[in-house]
């Protein structure tokens, strides 16, 4: 689908409103394929039935034009802004916020946003510093890519950080990821995508873990060393037997994605951000003249 708006700020707002709802209703194809394959290879009786129910649920949502899961999440966007894109990021942020509100009120969607101390609702899935936006700025380019990732709380609550020491090495990283996923059990709606951020600093490792869950199933880290670790962890995680919804089985995770950054010689941070099977995401590309292309990946 593609649209053209003359007002660029309006185009970004409309795109956000569309992306949020689209992501909630329509599970990406890579994930559908991964769930179908998981269903076929699962041997435990409850595990298989769970996966059959999940696959059926994705189809029911489509047939009924309903959202897949009731948790509309917190709206997280990743933005790649070209150096020559003619709308300032402050305006992009404002447009994303209003778009999120419009989607929430017009659909209508459940609003989850509350003040973190008073727990009072702060707005239609918006509030102070909500939505959350990850920014990336690209030189020599004039476009804007926006990806919306409504992040459910059941899986977000299963986020873990450990400041391993260099002597813990790769073994320490593996052990921490395995312990995190076994400890999470059925709470984050497995099988999902395990996002791992390594290196950088404490906050950046968690940022990277969130970037990792936004990747489609089947993608690998471009660094061969990191990609090898992704494969090893994927196999080990599925040996734990936690299974679909923590009821036991062969499929504990659909994928393990790792993002990394170089770090200090005395640091070895490991962050785990779990993404449930309903790993929702939707993207749009916006040109400087307000032309919007909706596609799953940009």
């Amino acid at each position: 689908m593609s649209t053209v708006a003359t007002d660029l700020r309006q185009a970004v707002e409309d795109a956000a409103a569309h992306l949020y709802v689209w992501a909630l209703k329509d599970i990406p194809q890579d994930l559908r394929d991964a769930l179908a394959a998981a269903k076929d290879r699962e041997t435990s009786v409850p595990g298989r039935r769970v996966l059959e129910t999940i696959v059926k649920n994705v189809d029911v949502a489509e047939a009924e034009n309903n959202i897949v899961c009731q948790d509309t999440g917190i709206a997280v966007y990743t933005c790649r802004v070209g150096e020559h894109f003619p709308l300032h990021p402050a305006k992009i942020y404002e447009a994303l916020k209003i778009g999120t509100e419009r989607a929430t009120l017009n659909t209508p969607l459940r609003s989850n946003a509350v003040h973190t101390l008073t727990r009072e609702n702060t707005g239609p899935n918006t509030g102070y510093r909500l939505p959350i936006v990850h920014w990336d700025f690209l030189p020599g380019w004039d476009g804007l890519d926006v990806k919306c990732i409504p992040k459910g709380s059941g899986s977000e609550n299963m986020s873990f950080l450990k400041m391993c020491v260099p002597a813990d090495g790769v073994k320490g990283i593996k052990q921490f990821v395995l312990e995190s996923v076994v400890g999470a059990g059925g709470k984050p709606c497995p099988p999902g995508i395990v996002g791992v951020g390594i290196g950088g600093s404490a906050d950046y490792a968690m940022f990277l873990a969130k970037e990792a869950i936004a990747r489609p199933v089947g993608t690998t880290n471009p660094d061969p060393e990191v990609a090898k670790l992704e494969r090893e962890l994927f196999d080990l995680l599925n040996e734990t037997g936690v299974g679909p919804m923590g009821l036991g089985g062969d499929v504990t995770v659909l994928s393990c994605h790792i993002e990394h950054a170089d770090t200090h010689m005395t640091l070895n941070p490991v962050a785990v951000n779990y993404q449930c099977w309903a790993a929702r995401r939707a993207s749009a590309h916006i040109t400087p003249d307000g032309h919007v292309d909706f596609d799953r990946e940009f």
Partner: protein
Amino acid sequence: MAEHRLTFPTSEEDIRKLHAGDLVTVDGHILGIRDRTQIRIFDQGVEPPLELNGAFLLHTAPNVRKLGPGKYEPMCVGTTTSARMVRFTEPLGRDHGVRAIAGKGGLPDEAIEPMAKYGMVYFALVGGAAALETTQIEEIEEVYWEELMPECLWKFRVKDFGPLWVGIDSHGNSMYRDVQSEATKRLEEIVAGL
């Protein structure tokens, strides 16, 4: 693994027939509750506005559309992570005669004893399968404590609600405890081989 069909509210006798791992489909009335609903009942000491005896409690905060005063249409009704609310298990059974608590991800082991003592079960739903569950809800009959929206106390009439697994039964068994102890054992073996 046996399969059962139950209509709620139900009796202790029927609940005692269920065993961990069984598959259950439910008809009748179920009540939606969440963190704030139970904080109000137990921490703030407010009497629930309706009878909980024999009840099926679903951990949920639904997406709804308001039709008129106190009247809502279900848009997308699913379930939430139960573990956060485990401390309410004992008083729900002891003081209110609740028979079933349903949600996702299981309840920690501290729920096993009160469930055995008071004749309760934990039902596991497929977390996230909300579009499907919504088709099993016939009507939202009542809403209490609307000011807690969406964490109100909801009364749903359901048909063919499920599939539900008996995650914890009233005989001291828990699928979660079994899976966790097996996974912990495997984890130790994996880590030893790293």
